[in-house]
């Protein structure tokens, strides 16, 4: 296995920041779909969907340094986001 270093921190952490947010937002969308939440602001289920974003985003951002390279980080996180958002689109969860 390739060694990981901190030298490519910028590429990996920007993937974690941007794609991590996309992934977190998509996850909250899947939750809203599964839980049947219409609005976000007033219902408590909707608030829970908003809260979900923080742990997912922060986890991706914290662990994205483990990817072998910048390309791997963007590739895998892009794939994961694509799957989540593809599923959301297929299920009709996107406005």
């Amino acid at each position, binding site marked *: 296995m390739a060694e990981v270093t901190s030298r490519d921190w910028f590429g990996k952490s920007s993937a974690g920041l941007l794609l991590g947010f996309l992934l977190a937002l998509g996850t909250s969308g899947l939750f809203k779909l599964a839980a049947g939440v219409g609005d976000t602001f007033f219902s408590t289920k*909707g608030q829970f969907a908003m809260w979900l974003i923080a742990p997912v985003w922060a986890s991706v951002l914290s662990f994205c340094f483990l990817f072998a390279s910048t390309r791997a980080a963007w590739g895998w996180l892009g794939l994961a986001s694509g799957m989540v958002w593809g599923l959301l689109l297929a299920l009709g969860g996107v406005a």
Partner: protein
Amino acid sequence: MKVRTDIIKMYKDVHGWVGILSGLALFIAFYAGAITMFEEPLQRWASPPVRLAPAPSLDKAPELIAKVLAAHPEASKGYDVNLVVDANRPARVSWAVGGRGEEHGPRKTFYASLDGRGDLQATERGPSPIAQFIDVLHQQVGLPLDHEIAMPIMGAIALLYCIAIVSGTVVLLPSLVSDLFALRVGKNVKRMWLDVHNVLGLFSLPFHLIMALTAVVFAFHDQFYDAQGLAFGGGAREERRAVPPRSGRPLDPAALIARVREQAPGFSPISVSFTRSPGGALSARVAGTDPRYGLRGPTAGFAGVDPYTGIIKATDYMPGSQDRWSATITSFFALHFGNFGGAPIRWAYFLLGLAGAMLFYTGNLLWVESRRKKERKAGLVEQTRATRILGALTVGVPLGCVAGISATLAAAKLLGESATSGMHSAIYYAVFLAFIGWALIRGAARAGLDLLIAAAATTASIPIATVIMAGKHPFTVPMVDITAALIASGLLLTWRVMHNRARGGPRDSVWSIAAANASGRCNPAS
């Protein structure tokens, strides 16, 4: 536990960089945050006695409300009736005008009572603004900026903090068992600081995870809601349904509270807020506590009540009556605010907050010391400019924050009625900046000693101010003065230890006085 060495090395680098970027801001957030655990007692301690006539009883509140509304029609939009009248809520009835998004200028709160002849008294003089000032300092990690600008910066620091927690834990994993209960106090001071840092970090890991994740939400919730609204629709901010005004007479506050107590015996009401919508519909919200449950707000939960029947209608934010989703959301807030379980939990959070501040301080120390080592390996005899400046900031920012808060707290007593939020802010930042300036001019080692004494003196001035002003402002909440005296003694003790170390420690350390004397200032050119 076995972790690949390249991963450890990588996360060690990451931990160092995110730590140094966020550590000083987090110190301020945690020190100020620890103090906000006692915002209500602190406000009682700092607020000069009220000049209003003694509050009329709750049964006489309708008379007071009628007179307030006659003299100040703008209060009909919303007013509070307080069940407990004390320094935190100094009048039976209060109301606010202006504020966010309104054209009437900054928010102003008025307090009303009835004098001996039953005439209305109203004053703008409320409780001391000091607790609010420290709370904002905490929320904005010490940045004197507009809330809208400070919050995303705080959010970015919270994200760095998340990365620091994960990377720090991973780095510690391989030596977890051998290092966990080890505190090697001895010749190797850096080893000792590392042990302290590890022990503090590991034992308060759950606390830090909670703080980091909730802080991300507190910073970015507007953006999160907006992004969700954009992506999934559903009208993130749809208007509430308009309720038509009702005929009939609303219940008197006393009767309303009696009805609420019948329905929720464990809930202790503190105040009732009445608001009238632009359409004319009246609504009532009761703020209260229940020590068996966490609270949605920092010091209270809320029940929506029908003002005409006293029936509890909305329990989303009401401790003990929430459904599972609401209770889960409330638990996130309560775990951040430490507002469950009463005083023992507040003290535990206070100590965890101070421990957190120490964690960031020791982290900064370690960073400066390892840079010094690296630089020495590279053949440098003196530290580089960057290391010197960081060393100076590591001393100046934490001590400046401690002393600034102490000075502005002591000033609350001295200023008395004339205290404003602006004055508290000016005093805090003057002291804070002076400490940083002194650290930069004198260098970490010498400034550290001077500033510790100065911080101890400012903190000791809190109980001194209490004694000086005792004539005008009778003793209340002695715990504030006792805690301040303890912190001042702690700072003095630290001064003694540092004093001895500065004379005996390694010469190329940032803490070495000998080196500081030899090289003069913090300026590498000298």
